[in-house]
């Protein structure tokens, strides 16, 4: 880890001011990802601005019946929050599928949005990586890429976004509230993370100096027909090979509305309106699920070691849609797949 200056932000405005004044400064909250990356010399900030004391820990109902989650609400607090468990069980389940008890007790909501890829090359400074060092090349292409992306990749980067929470947030149509030098704005989850394109060093559409202050959930939580199904190389404490957040609104045996988001397959939580359109208005049937899966994966491309993810995703999507349709969401402690 390099040496850095440490300062505490007094309030949000102070945090933004301090950040704007030093382009190589980083905010620190839970630290679970940033400190890790600093120890690997992947991140070398000259200043850490400690925002962990800012008053962003509230979970409040919004005027339109949704829920506003402060950026510093801990992952575990969010997962076990009565309102979240009751109204947004998909989000609760996705959070509990991720990391470990200890990490969830440290990681913040905002930090979870901003966590960086687990690509093996991103983490090893002895290897070329465009995300870490733009222009140096993508080692994962042609390299050890079992965990890498199959959707939305570019020649510059095939990294995935590692979050489970974000997959659920994407499915739930959450919005991200940010404050920056030019004031406040909201960003829909779908636009928050980027595809790598030729700027893989940028994970999100946050502008310099902007800070995440909250995540807002709309009123509809899909509390009845949902699931978060995460497939990984061991039964807990591992990143997703493929994960699926599925949420359905079912009326008289027909799907009125469907949400489908994938984790572990792309540089961002992967949603596709066309796939959801395949489901909407259709009866609850295997064929429909299979077609939706085909559509969301239509541009999927393997890179060797991760070719299997395409077929695995297809199967996992169908299974998750079944779980959601039948109201038998995946348990995160009983490892039988429901």
């Amino acid at each position, binding site marked *: *880890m390099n040496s850095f200056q440490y300062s505490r932000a007094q309030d949000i405005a102070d945090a933004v001011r301090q950040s704007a004044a030093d382009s190589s400064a980083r905010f620190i909250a839970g630290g679970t990802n940033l400190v890790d990356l600093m120890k690997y010399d992947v991140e070398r900030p000259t200043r850490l601005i400690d925002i962990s004391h800012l008053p962003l820990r509230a979970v409040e109902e919004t005027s339109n019946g949704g829920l506003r989650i402060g950026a510093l609400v801990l992952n575990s607090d969010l997962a076990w929050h009565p309102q979240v468990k009751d109204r947004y069980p998909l989000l609760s389940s996705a959070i509990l599928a991720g990391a470990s008890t200890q990490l969830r007790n440290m990681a913040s909501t905002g930090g979870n949005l901003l966590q960086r890829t687990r690509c093996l090359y991103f983490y090893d400074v002895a290897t070329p990586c465009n995300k870490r060092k733009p222009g140096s090349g993508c*080692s994962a292409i042609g390299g050890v890429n*079992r965990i890498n992306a199959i959707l939305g990749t570019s020649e510059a980067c095939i990294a995935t976004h590692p979050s489970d929470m974000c997959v659920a947030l994407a499915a739930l149509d959450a919005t991200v509230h940010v404050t920056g030098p030019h004031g406040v704005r909201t960003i829909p989850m779908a636009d928050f993370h980027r595809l790598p394109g030729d700027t893989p060093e940028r994970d999100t559409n946050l502008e310099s100096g902007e800070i995440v202050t909250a995540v807002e959930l709309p009123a509809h939580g899909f509390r009845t027909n949902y699931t978060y199904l995460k497939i990984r190389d*061991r039964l807990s404490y591992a990143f997703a090979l493929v994960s699926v957040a599925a949420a359905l609104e079912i009326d008289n045996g027909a799907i009125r509305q469907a949400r489908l988001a994938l984790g572990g397959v792309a540089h961002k939580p992967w949603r596709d309106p066309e796939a959801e359109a395949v489901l909407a208005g259709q009866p609850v049937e295997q064929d429909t699920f299979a077609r939706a899966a085909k559509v969301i994966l239509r541009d999927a491309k393997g890179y060797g070691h991760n070719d*299997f993810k395409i077929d695995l995703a297809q199967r996992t999507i169908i299974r998750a849609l079944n779980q959601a349709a039948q109201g038998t969401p995946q348990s995160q402690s009983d490892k*039988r797949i429901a």
Partner: protein
Amino acid sequence: MTNYIGTATSRVDGRDKVTGVARYAAEFGAPDLVHASIVTSPIAKGHIKRIDRARAMDVEGVIAVLTHQDRPAMADSDKAYKDDVAPEEGSPFRPLYDDRIQFSGQPVALVLAEDSETASYAASLIDITYDEEPHVTDFARARDKAVALDAPAKPRGDAASAFATSDVRHHADYFVPIEHHNPMELFASTAIWNDGKLTVYDKTQGVQNVHGYLCRVFECDPDDIRVVSPFVGGAFGSGLRPAYQAALAVLAARAVHRSVRLVLTRQQMYALGYRPAMIQRIQLGATADGALNAIAHDAVTSTSRYEDFHRNETTWSSLLYKSETASYQHKLAHLDLATSCDMRAPSAATGVYALEAAMDELAVALGMDPVELRLTCYSDRDQRTGLPFSSKNLRECYRRGAEAFGWDRRSGAPRSMREGRELIGWGMATGVWEALQMPITVRIALTSNGHAEVSCATADIGTGTYTIMTQVAADVLGLPIEAISIKLGDSTLPQSPVEGGSWMAASVSNGIVTTGKAIRDDLLKLAQHIPGSPFKGLSNDEVMLVDGAITSRANRRDAIAIADVVRAASIDRIERKEQTTFAKDKAHAHNTHSAIFAEVRVDEDIGVIRVARIVSAVAAGRILNPKTARSQIMGGMVWGIGMALHEETLIDHRLGRIMNANIAEYHVPVNADVHDIDVIFVDEQDDFVNPMGIKGLGEIGIVGVAAAIANAVYHATGVRVRDLPITLDKLTRTA
């Protein structure tokens, strides 16, 4: 009469471990401690061209940067670097010795600073340029150039012809990737400087091996260095040979004349040893009723470019099953990696995996129950030598294991058992390891307050050595366990081999018995001098130590408290140090055995594999402590789950570099991966292996488990995966 041996006893070091009092190598200090951090090579092969240390030296708190160019003197002969368990052939790695790069992750510079953060930061500022040379780290590529070793075992008959004419034949290749031990404790050494003499707290399985190595490498007197290791946070073979950080800590201390601590990072530990990658081809030929008439086992295993590490994978198929003919071949492939090394049940975890997976395939080809096939081929003699076993209760392992598992309810056809969407698979395998013991010296000091200190330079790497030594000493000396204290893990203590190969329990226990008898003999002599002694004229074997007293065997009422005997002699202690050697029993083969039964559940659509339960029935001679013994077997079984389903070191062969050098992406089992584990010890009295009939448990727990799981996966799914680990993609890929 007290009888601690054979009684379930809680670990005597348990309290120290659950309260955090037990101290490991990085947890010893000195007021003026220097912290060291190493820089490692990003290339796999070549030479160091230039080292720019200026930026590192500018960092406040940096004391020195050591490289091959300016380090203190080190020995220049291979002999100095060859430790007690080094491979016979080759030239051991010399840390920071010269400009040659032999593997990615090799230490190339050592930064010394006033605190650990400064040291690691400064290390990141050292700029090194290299002349890179072509490397090969891909086992698949090196395999063709593998060099044949001398025939590992004598062939029997004409296996090729016998195979060709067998009624039923099976042959296949089985692959095991490189695996890393990943003990929880980071490798570390703290060298305490005391006027030129050094006490080195080290993470090792053999303090005296490290001591000898350091003395030779630094050309110093045995008294100049002492190696201490009271607690070891797991090792599993990774601590058998001296790890390079021990040499570098000493090197640094000698450079700056201060105490130095060097803790490796988890990533750096991947450039220590590992289980070699290997391909094994097994050919089995049998008659229609399941009698084997041909076994051929060919192994290709990997090592470094500079040392020939190998064990004998094929030995297990050569001894286990009855077969008229057999042939063996072993080749060694050289890669530009660090040298491979022993890892839990070296050669058996892997060799028996291949053999037992192949036996399962043969059973399928025969249409025979897998247990039935093993019983048909059962041998009461070591097939290599024709010698009977000193004891072999494997039949009972099959019987008890099958019974506890409920094997008779198995439906034979693959994919024939299910519950909901889960396919259920039941598989089994045999396990085998060798029962060994090594010469050892034990000192016992018995004091007039009735306390005994038992010491030996062995190690407790989590195996329970402290506890079994206490139990054995208590029984031998007739004292309560509270009156026994154990000293181990110190190179100045009486001679011990490294702790490995499952030989320590037998070695040290018999060692305690030898020294305990000498103590008894001394006590008898002293007791005979007491006026009115009831022991006059009795010989050594006519008395025993029991309930704190020397006691006549013939007349238990003739007893004098040990403390009284010592006091009566006007001395404060009796001390004896005796060596124990073991006569070679040339009339028998000596092995431990097990039968493993596993149930897996595989999701039919997704391929997620869950190991629902495993039963292992073990025949391993006398069990000293059923409680810790069960834990050791259980631990081996958990390793078997990892080997079967999770563990694989991933190398980018373009870079010659290990890419998952951490424990997030190198998967070992977590709590959620491990369900019901049942351990059964079958009775096995052994009058030949050593006087106490102890056979050891460290390895046998893992052997066969990966095969049992792989066989269960086949039974569940009908898909045979021969390349470990069995990840879900391999099931769906071939489905």
